[in-house]
């Protein structure tokens, strides 16, 4: 058994945690010493108190945002993967559709969100559509790249064994694409949250939302800055949680063989 300080896992958790506690401590002490008013820049303790005090309403907002995020993420994964499969099946499809995928990616969601919110009556649905549009592209581009990045030697081997399209897809292309796909998931999960929050902001200004972004807007109107920070804290926490979940998922799927997930021990 190694001493705790030399353990890689312990250091990986403890070091950033120590930095975080230090920063929060400085923040708290700094605010107190400079006596900065709560409505300008709240202390961490104010934020924590607000988190506890507004707990039920913030949690309700969190569930709303989380639902939109997860729905959008799921939709992006399903649609993105299907589109990627289509792209690799036919060069013609890819060439004719890829520019539009790029078009979706480069159009800022803030700019199209109002349009979608007006067009789609159901708020939940319109928010999900906005967030999906944001989260879609990394899945499409990464999965397409992965499905194309087949080891040429293996591709040759499959061809020599007269493997059909379907078998080549299932046994060669899909397993080979997994590392890229999981890379896409990590980016996309974060983007789904960003898309959801941005869309909520847009919808929130029209008074048609109830997610965390709306909490932030509402707190801004009432100058309840600690509640604003508390909502922000929850959004950040959600993002970290999503990212962590994707890391774990990718580890579970790839740790046996892929370089990116193999520890330093080998």
């Amino acid at each position, binding site marked *: 058994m190694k001493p705790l300080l030399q353990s890689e896992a312990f250091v990986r958790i403890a070091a950033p945690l120590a930095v975080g506690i230090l920063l929060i401590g400085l923040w708290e002490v700094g605010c107190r010493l400079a006596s900065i008013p709560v409505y300008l820049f709240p202390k961490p303790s104010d934020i924590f108190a607000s988190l506890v005090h507004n707990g039920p309403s913030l949690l309700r907002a969190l569930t709303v945002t989380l639902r939109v995020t997860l729905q959008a993420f799921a939709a992006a994964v399903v649609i993105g993967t299907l589109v990627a499969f289509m792209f690799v099946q036919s060069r013609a499809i890819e060439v004719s559709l890829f520019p539009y995928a790029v078009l979706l990616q480069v159009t800022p969601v803030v700019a199209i969100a109002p349009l979608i919110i007006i067009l789609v009556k159901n708020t939940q649905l319109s928010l999900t559509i906005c967030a999906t549009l944001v989260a879609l592209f990394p899945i499409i581009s990464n999965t397409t790249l992965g499905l194309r990045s087949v*080891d040429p*030697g*293996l591709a*040759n*081997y*499959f061809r*020599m*064994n*007269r*493997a059909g399209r379907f*078998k080549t897809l299932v*046994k*060669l292309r899909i*397993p*080979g694409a*997994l590392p890229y796909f999981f890379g896409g998931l990590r980016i996309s999960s974060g983007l789904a949250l960003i898309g959801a929050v941005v869309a909520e902001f847009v919808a929130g200004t029209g008074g048609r939302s109830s997610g965390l972004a709306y909490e932030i807007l509402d707190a801004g109107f009432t100058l309840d800055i600690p509640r604003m920070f508390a909502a922000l804290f929850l959004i950040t926490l959600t993002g970290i949680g999503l990212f962590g979940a994707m890391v774990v998922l990718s580890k579970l799927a790839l740790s*046996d*063989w*892929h370089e990116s997930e*193999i520890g330093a021990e*080998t």
Partner: protein
Amino acid sequence: MKALMPGEPLSENPDQTTASADKPPAVEVLSAEKVFANGTRGLAPIDLTIADGEFLTLIGPSGCGKSTLLKLIANLIEPSDGRLLWWRGEFGKVGQDGRRFAFVFQEPTLMPWARVDANVRLPLELADVANAKMAPAVAEAIERVGLSKFARHFPRQLSGGMKMRVSIARALVTNPNLLLMDEPFGALDEFTRNNLDADLIRLWWERKLTTVFVTHSIYEAVFLSTRIIVMAANPGRIFRTMTIDEPQPRDEGFRDSAKFAAYCRELSTWLAEASLPTASGAAS
């Protein structure tokens, strides 16, 4: 049969080696030539008969078309002119007769996400072999290359030589009639290579497996082959043919014999001649 001296040119009658009257030749290359799309003449018209059960090695300087010839034999590419026959039939007939090819590349080309047994099982899965038949065939092939203890390992956990063994097991698992190997041990150190050569010749002997082998190594060619085709470049063609008259199965003792050294010397001289610009017909 009287022992042939290594120096005797044999290209006049290449069929005398192991061909027997009752067995059709495994492959006949009939004036096949290859001109690539950019106009390069990869292969001048070549005539070659590969007898059933033969271990034939193609050797020659870079660009002599030995890999191209191997690809023609594997039907991976079509000849520009001339044709090839497999067991006296067209390529389309090969599968229907239940005859199979196996190919071993220079790289092991294993699936990194699959364990050794899953990698070896792959050609059976691609050929839609029944599940019940797969397991014993896979176990036997892995056993033959001495990797039974590593069946549940991933390729990254194996050494280069072991990966190559997995690749050979994958080739053997279908019980092929014709084994085509393109510099399979080229990337390995000499010690590992010698070991694999010894294994390969044992497997070849046990299975009476017609093998076409491409290599750069003179020693490997002499040790393994019943017949060696020396090729020359510009355009790729057969320069000379050497029959290695040493009983099978050969063991490491052959490597130390004076006969082995004589064959190697002779082959080395031929290779030097084949590499000369004059022999290649172009001075560039």
